[in-house]
């Protein structure tokens, strides 16, 4: 009988492995609605070599592995569906390199967004990365692996589009370098182009094809000032047009569209938050005028207008990450929040918000409809977000039903479910082009012949 615990302890040190009930309980659940499932072990490696040894052991003994960062996807992606080993990556917390001229950073697999943010502010104040709204403990790798979005997504795409290279431990234990540094270990400026882009084998696969132990991430200019403009409209059907006009200016950082019934000042309107940046007042003033002019027709028609935001109300709107996002979990005084955040074409926004209100009414739910514009408006992330009381099983059940309906609606409308739950992954698989599905299956089998990596996910 192989003593897995001791073998893991030999790799990472006894104080970094646990099979205690408490760790198994906690790492077997997340703050969303997915039912829990405990792992057998939780292990915290500090180096790529330790990760490699763990993977080799697991591959040999056919033990499932789930790599975990912050665990804040909220859709159960790091709940170990078949038990096994959860690898908490957060001890791999070094920021390895910042290249100012090529504007990229290389981080280990467990670096948190919070620490990267702090590091850049302190040491490289002219550079920034795309900070997501998920709390500061979320990891750069975890967020990229699920195609997360952040403050720079409107300008530059998904946070995964900003990846500039990977170091990956394959399920069979090999260590691979992906991107420009596959040929020159010094340079992490590209994740694939102009060669076959192998990063696509790992981004979006939820750890089913390998464990990312290092990641290169593009950095962008960090201007000295940021400000927020708020445009309100009560006409849902105008929102796609407003976004088109705004993105046409090429003057904006983030564009977030919010609709929610609370606090009372938000009721009855759609709030479009427009963040602008600049190195001077003149630059910001110029951008403000361009943005105003872009929406002038709508303003004149009285169908929408800019709200003057008093100085004391700006900080929470500009905050990165926004702590207001997690406060949503306490609206029902119950610590619960989950959302389905499909990626949809801009023009579908009115249908999605109508659907959300229908679900809210049908299931009697507290909600927030938040949407973020992606890559200049080529698509947007629309969040069917619901908050629940963890001590109210009935409410949790109603939200599960609402989210299921939201997922079905998304699929009907041709949207793409973002960070889909296992159930949603099945919906996608059912509808996917069969030949495309075959490729996915082949890739998984090739890379993970023993099916140890986060099993249950993307099972074609």
């Amino acid at each position, binding site marked *: 009988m192989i003593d897995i615990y001791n073998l893991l302890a030999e790799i990472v040190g006894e104080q970094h492995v646990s099979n205690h009930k*408490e760790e198994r309980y906690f790492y077997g659940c997340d703050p969303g609605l997915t039912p829990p499932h405990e792992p057998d072990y939780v292990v*915290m490696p500090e180096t790529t070599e330790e990760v490699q040894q763990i993977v080799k052991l697991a591959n040999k003994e056919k033990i499932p592995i789930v790599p975990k960062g912050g665990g*804040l996807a909220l859709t159960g992606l790091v709940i170990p569906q078949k038990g096994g080993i959860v690898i908490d990556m957060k*001890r791999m917390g070094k920021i390895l390199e910042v290249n100012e001229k090529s504007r990229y950073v290389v981080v280990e697999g467990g670096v948190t967004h919070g620490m990267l*943010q702090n590091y850049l502010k302190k040491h490289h104040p002219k550079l920034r990365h795309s900070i997501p709204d998920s*709390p500061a*403990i979320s990891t750069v790798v975890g967020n990229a692996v699920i195609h997360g979005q952040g403050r720079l997504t409107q300008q530059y795409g998904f946070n995964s589009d900003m990846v500039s290279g990977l170091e990956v431990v394959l399920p069979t234990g090999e260590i691979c370098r992906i991107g420009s540094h596959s040929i020159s270990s010094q340079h992490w400026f590209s994740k694939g182009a102009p060669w076959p882009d192998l990063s696509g084998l790992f981004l979006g696969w939820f750890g089913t094809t390998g464990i990312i132990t290092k990641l290169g991430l593009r950095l962008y200019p960090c201007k000295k000032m940021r400000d927020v403009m708020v445009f309100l409209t009560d006409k849902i059907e105008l929102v796609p047009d407003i976004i088109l006009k705004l993105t046409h200016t090429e003057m904006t950082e983030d564009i977030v569209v919010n609709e929610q019934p609370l606090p009372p000042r938000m009721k009855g309107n759609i709030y479009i938050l427009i963040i602008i940046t600049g190195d001077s007042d003149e630059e910001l003033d110029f951008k403000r005028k361009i943005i105003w002019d872009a929406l002038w027709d709508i303003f004149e028609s009285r169908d929408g207008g800019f709200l003057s935001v008093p100085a004391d109300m700006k900080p929470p709107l500009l905050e990165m990450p926004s702590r207001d996002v*997690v406060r949503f979990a306490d609206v029902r*005084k119950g*610590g619960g929040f989950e959302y389905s955040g499909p990626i949809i074409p801009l023009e579908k926004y009115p249908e999605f918000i109508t659907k959300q209100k229908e679900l809210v009414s049908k299931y009697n739910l507290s909600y927030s409809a938040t949407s973020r514009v992606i890559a200049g408006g080529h698509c947007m992330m629309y969040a069917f977000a619901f908050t629940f009381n963890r001590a109210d099983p009935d409410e949790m059940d109603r939200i599960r039903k609402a989210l299921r309906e939201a997922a079905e609606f998304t699929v009907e409308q041709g949207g793409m479910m973002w960070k889909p739950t296992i159930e949603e992954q099945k919906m996608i698989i059912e509808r996917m082009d069969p030949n495309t599905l075959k490729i996915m299956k082949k890739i998984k089998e090739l890379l993970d012949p023993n099916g140890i990596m986060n099993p249950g996910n993307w099972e074609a």
Partner: protein
Amino acid sequence: MTDYTKQIHRCFRCGYCKFPSDYSDFNCPSYARFRFDTYSTSGRLWLIYAWLKGEIEWSEHLAEILYSCTTCKNCVEQCPMKFSSDIVDWIVAARSDMMEKEKGRIPPRVTSFLEDVYRLGNPLKERGKRDAWANGIKRYQPGDEYLFYVGCLGSYDEFGRRMARSVARLLSEAGISFGILGNDENCCGNEVYLLGEKELFQVLAERNIQKFKELGVKKVVTLSPHAYNAMKNNYPLVSNAYFEVSHYTQLLCGLLRENKIRPSRNKIKVTYHDPCFLGRYNKIYGEPREVLQSIPGIELLEMERNRENSFCCGGGSGNFVTDLLGGSEESPSRIRVREAYETGADILAVACPSCMTMLQDAVKVENLESKLAVKDISQVVAESL
């Protein structure tokens, strides 16, 4: 405080409790030490909830997780939710509940701490006279302006005693009328309260309040922020406490402003470690700094994590005795002295005997003894006279 059993499920495990305001490093001492998510506040709250629901049973490991919290209140400071101010109170209430419901199945070191306080009047296993350190410092007489409350570490710990003597010297030189309780002094009960032993805390508090009343004590000045916290915030819940309490740094600050103490020029580089029970618990950040800055020639260098972001030395909630966070390079006290050293300071100034003892030990283990001296504020001032 709200009933924790009805509120504790509100934790969203967002993880802000692990950080300081600027996310520069992990700021939860037990999380920094152990790194399993279970050792952060959100881990604790979720496990307590699971225990309440019967989803997990009591175990030694659960007890260890629960008692490794130093109750430093970084989580209270950082939690974005409306219930943030209650978080540590919930942990303390859960400790209390578990003590009762699990028939006292708590970590042996914690049991030992509480038993020693009960039987010996201090958690340090000291049986000697409490005022053996006092070297002629007078006993409190009715009519004295201040009762100087020294506490267990001040009475028995080598470094604590030096602090006590140093504070006493400064008060004398400033002409303050004060006295100590000597052997009649009882443990303040702050750690007992935080460890969840409500009944023992009640006894200690009542005894102290009664003693002060008998002697007509109107003003108490404490050596330790722990005692300051207990007397300011928890004693009034037990009984009407008819005295004002201040911490010695507040008193020193006043004396310096009135020129009753006049430090001479002293060209030193000092960094100040905010103790949790003065800082986050009672929002006293300015006076200790003002005391230090009153020394001509001093250069006060701030650690990156200061004031409400101060990183706990790891001694709170009895850990200066139970040492549940020791034994690693990532023990909070070792992390903190490394941080202090990086400022370029020669002196790490403290205002708490618990911080003193934790950081003194850490400096030794980190081989920084010749490079970084740990001194309490009164010693820094006294050496400048």
